């Protein structure tokens, strides 16, 4: 979604000869009729234009008669940039958590399917060629081969599909890496874009994540274990998908429950800040770092009864 601004004009990116103001009416010759039309056009140029390299735009604009002097140029740039940004913000805010959920689910599907397909392809290729390595990397190696028969062609082609699917997974991960911070800046900073996207997907949206109690966020993704616990068959799960976070996984097992609880608490606050305020809250991140340092310090002092003491 973030590519829409650049997308249509990527092919038009010439040698950088075109400033945003070119082909727009100049300030001096404009009558009031065309002016009403000029502002949206200027904003559209700012949003959609591209150039390979910058130039001395203020000088060029004055030379071309777009503006009488540098001051007028900057005044018009100010108006165009402000309008362009206001429009783009409005549009992008609609580009939303729903897209992020699609992207993260598609990434998981692509990964699973790529692995399955790669496994099939290398198994097949192993019966045709020598020295076939397992997995995606093996499939990539097979895809690079020159097939010499009908059957080899099919096996090599299948391996190529698996490799392409893995490329798609990587592209999706990159998209998530760029869009998650736009959708949920605090959550993405705290959890990383991928985990942030997964939490939003598991909750069904940023708003519903923001409305969940932290105890629920702590076990999101561990629903099987949770229901096993509720029906009396298992202990309560200490963590769900947040296990993938370094703060949980990198904490010694005795303190992981505390770490997961602390992380889930701050993730919940981060999701709320993102949904309700949308601005970065540095205190939140500092608080979590401090709390994690305290929890991890227990491993050093290692008092036997410290594991659950002092928790909120």
């Amino acid at each position, binding site marked *: 979604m*973030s590519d829409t*601004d*650049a997308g249509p004009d990527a092919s038009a*990116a010439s040698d*950088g000869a*075109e*400033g*945003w103001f070119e082909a727009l009416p100049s300030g001096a010759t404009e009558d009031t009729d065309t002016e009403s039309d000029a502002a949206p056009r200027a904003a559209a*140029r*700012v*949003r959609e*234009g*591209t*150039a*390979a*390299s*910058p*130039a*001395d*735009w*203020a000088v060029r604009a004055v030379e071309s008669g777009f503006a009488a002097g540098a001051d007028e140029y*900057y*005044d018009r*740039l*100010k108006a165009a*940039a*402000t309008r*362009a*940004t*206001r429009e*783009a*913000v409005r549009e*992008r*805010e609609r*580009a939303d958590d729903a897209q992020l959920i699609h992207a993260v689910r598609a990434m998981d599907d692509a990964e699973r399917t790529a692995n399955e397909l790669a496994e099939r392809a290398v198994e097949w290729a192993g019966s045709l060629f020598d020295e076939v390595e397992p997995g995606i990397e093996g499939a990539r190696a097979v895809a690079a081969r020159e097939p010499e028969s009908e059957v080899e062609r099919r096996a090599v082609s299948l391996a190529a599909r698996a490799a392409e699917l893995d490329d798609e997974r990587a592209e999706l991960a990159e998209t998530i*890496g*760029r869009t998650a*911070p*736009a959708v949920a*800046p605090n959550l993405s*900073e705290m959890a*990383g874009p991928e985990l942030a996207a997964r939490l939003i997907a598991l909750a069904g949206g940023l708003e519903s994540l923001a409305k969940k109690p932290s105890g629920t966020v702590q076990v999101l993704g561990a629903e099987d274990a949770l229901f096993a616990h509720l029906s009396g068959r298992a202990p309560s799960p200490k963590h769900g998908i947040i296990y993938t976070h*370094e703060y949980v996984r*990198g904490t010694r097992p005795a303190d992981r429950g505390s770490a997961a609880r602390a992380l889930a608490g701050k993730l919940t606050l981060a999701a709320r800040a*993102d949904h309700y305020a*949308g*601005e*970065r809250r*540095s205190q939140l991140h*500092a608080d979590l*770092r401090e709390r994690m340092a305290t929890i991890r310090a227990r491993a050093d002092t290692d008092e036997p009864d410290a594991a659950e003491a002092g928790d909120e």
Partner: protein
Amino acid sequence: MSEPTLPDGVERREIAGEERLATRGEPVYGEPTADGWRAWDPERSKLGGMLELGLETGLTGGETVLYLGAASGTTVSHVADFAGPTYAVEFAPRPARDLLDAAAPRDRLFPLLKDARKPETYAHVVERDVDAVVQDVATRGQAEVAARNARFLADDGRLLLAIKARSEDVTAAPEAVFEGALDRLREAYEIVETRRLDRFHEDHLGVVATPK
């Protein structure tokens, strides 16, 4: 260390009983003010931290600036108070909404909702030979972003960069992350000075560099 050089338009002023860095302009984020001067909190601003710690930023006041990662406009509003034309690039729409408010009373602060990783999407707007590129983006590949934006900088211009270790790799030691980033940076820049900003910003490295 001797008293660092502050750009014209940035002063240490007595505000709310404390001597603090300050610029003159409309308040943006509820910061304390006195006599038209607004306190510049080094704990909320990497560039403010760099100035407070005495890095030689080369800023003198009145320069043309490209600011990457403007977020809500906290720092860039101070920059626009003492600099000349200031281009503020921010990728995320929500903070950009606040950036618009911060930019409104500043007639040479140009807000741009663009991805700093794609300079070609704003090279038709941002002029060349800017005096300073200030970068504070919380994304992986911060050195790469700086390298790609070297095209805007004048030969004697300065890159003022805050590298955030946790954006590159939450698990690696910050020192290792910084070394890797500086290696990438050296392909496009000459490093003038580096300083840890930990007093104000944990696990951040302040970098002053000039184009190769």
